[in-house]
């Protein structure tokens, strides 16, 4: 796992809420689909260290353009895919403030990112006051885990992970406004010596403007099981985020132009963490309901 994995964590962090937003505990109806084109990015010149303090680093960035899609195979079974078809990771030049000379040249790589494929099953039927679903996700390592001239840039973590997740959501009215709340818990089984992770979080949304505008907040936590065999420093440029842990807080606005089309924008940041970038991530996207 490489520095990219710090970023990958953020990616995953932003993917899971996306899933929740599109469905949460609610699977797609049969033959219905939700498709979202997103741009997600973060750039940071500081990080949380192994003791949870913030230290500087050369600016690192990753920019990922992705397609996320859900399809109702049946009324209870939904298939989803997250496909980051263009991912760019970069590291800035370091330049002497005294001479203006480039001390360490920056670098960038472009390519596919790691792809997630998942199935979600609605445990409760329609009409249930609490929608509960179970999901299984497979993380396919299509990204580059050793990119750049120093092999310190990645668009994937190089490991095949499997994640199982339980969602429970409920919709209700908040005065005259529609609202929902959803909670999830997941176990991420990671391979190639990486530590497994326990992920959990809550999400709440409220709709206004005739349910066209949704305001959504998310609080998520990732705990490392610290059971990996890699340690934190198995290679020269890697493992920066093996055993990463963080609490993140995110907000998103989603506006439906009509029943089919909408767009969204969001921001997520780590409130605390260990071995993870200390900077917010941003996302904008356009989605269609088919």
């Amino acid at each position, binding site marked *: 796992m*490489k*520095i990219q994995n710090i970023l990958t964590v953020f990616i995953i962090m932003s993917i899971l809420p996306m899933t929740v937003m599109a469905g949460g505990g609610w699977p797609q109806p049969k033959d219905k689909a939700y498709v979202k*084109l*997103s*741009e997600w*990015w973060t*750039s940071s*010149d500081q990080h949380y*260290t*192994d*003791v949870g*303090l*913030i*230290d*500087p*680093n*050369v*600016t*690192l*960035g990753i*920019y990922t*353009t992705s397609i996320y899609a859900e399809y109702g195979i049946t009324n209870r079974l939904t298939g989803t895919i997250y496909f980051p078809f*263009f991912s*760019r990771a*970069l*590291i*800035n*030049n*370091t*330049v*002497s*403030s*005294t*001479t203006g000379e*480039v*001390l*360490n040249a*920056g*670098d*960038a790589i472009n390519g596919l990112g790691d792809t997630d494929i998942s199935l979600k099953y609605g445990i409760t039927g329609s009409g249930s006051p609490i929608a509960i679903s179970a999901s299984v996700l497979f993380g396919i390592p299509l990204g580059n885990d050793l990119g750049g001239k*120093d092999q*310190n840039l990645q668009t994937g973590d190089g490991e095949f992970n499997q994640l199982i997740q339980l969602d429970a959501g409920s919709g209700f009215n908040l005065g005259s406004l529609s609202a929902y709340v959803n909670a999830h818990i997941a176990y991420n089984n990671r391979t190639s010596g990486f530590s497994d992770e326990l992920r959990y979080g809550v999400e709440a949304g409220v709709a206004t403007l005739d349910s066209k505008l949704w305001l959504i907040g998310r609080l998520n936590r990732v705990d490392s099981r610290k059971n990996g065999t890699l*340690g*934190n*420093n198995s*290679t*020269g*440029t*890697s*493992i*920066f985020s093996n055993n990463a842990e963080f609490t993140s807080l995110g907000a998103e606005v989603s506006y439906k*132009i009509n029943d*089919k*089309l909408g*767009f969204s924008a969001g921001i997520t940041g780590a409130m605390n963490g260990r*071995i993870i970038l200390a900077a917010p991530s941003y996302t*904008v*996207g*356009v989605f*269609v309901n088919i």
Partner: protein
Amino acid sequence: MINKSSYFSFIVLTISFLTSCIGDDFVFDEVEPMVVITSNLQTLALGTTFQIEAKYLDNVGAEQVLPKNWTSSASDIISVDQSGLITALNAGQSVITAELILDDMILEDQITVTVAEETTQSSNARTGVIESTSSYRLEGNFSLEKVGENLVLDIDETYQTTSALPGLYIYLTNNRNSNSGALEIGEVTVFSGAHSYTLPDDVGINDYQYLLYYCKPFSVKVGDGQFEN
């Protein structure tokens, strides 16, 4: 709907292209310029000569070749010419000075040489203390000395650091703020306890002023130690 969808998709993709360029991060790397005598001569045999070497390190710790002014405190005991070549003339001791005048600065370094029966190099080790300059743990003592024909950097048993950093490297440098121009000794693979590194043959014991721990992939200084002698 397709038109609107395409429009918003275009915006999404444009954001990516506009924001994802490699930029510059500036490093404050200015240091005090200095002249350093790198020769480790202790005694000089009567009637023989020895070339004293000195280097000028500029405000980023890089060596610049500039002529120095050489003087001897007792030229009747040891004479010195303007290339730094010294000659032992009589028994006794002399302080040899290399001086460089730059605009409003006078930089100099000195070495004390004793005229004796034979020419010898100092066997004293150079020592220092490793300290963290980040929130990553890093501590210990170090020494640099000749062991036989080899120059060996010893890290003692008090040494401890974290294994959480990827690509932690150790350097000898004349600029503690940057690994630019530094001698890369190697990647850190020992995270506690005593260990040592054998340095390349062309490295002199007085060539560097600092030991530097640096996270190479992220250009982050983790800690350093200054030679105290």
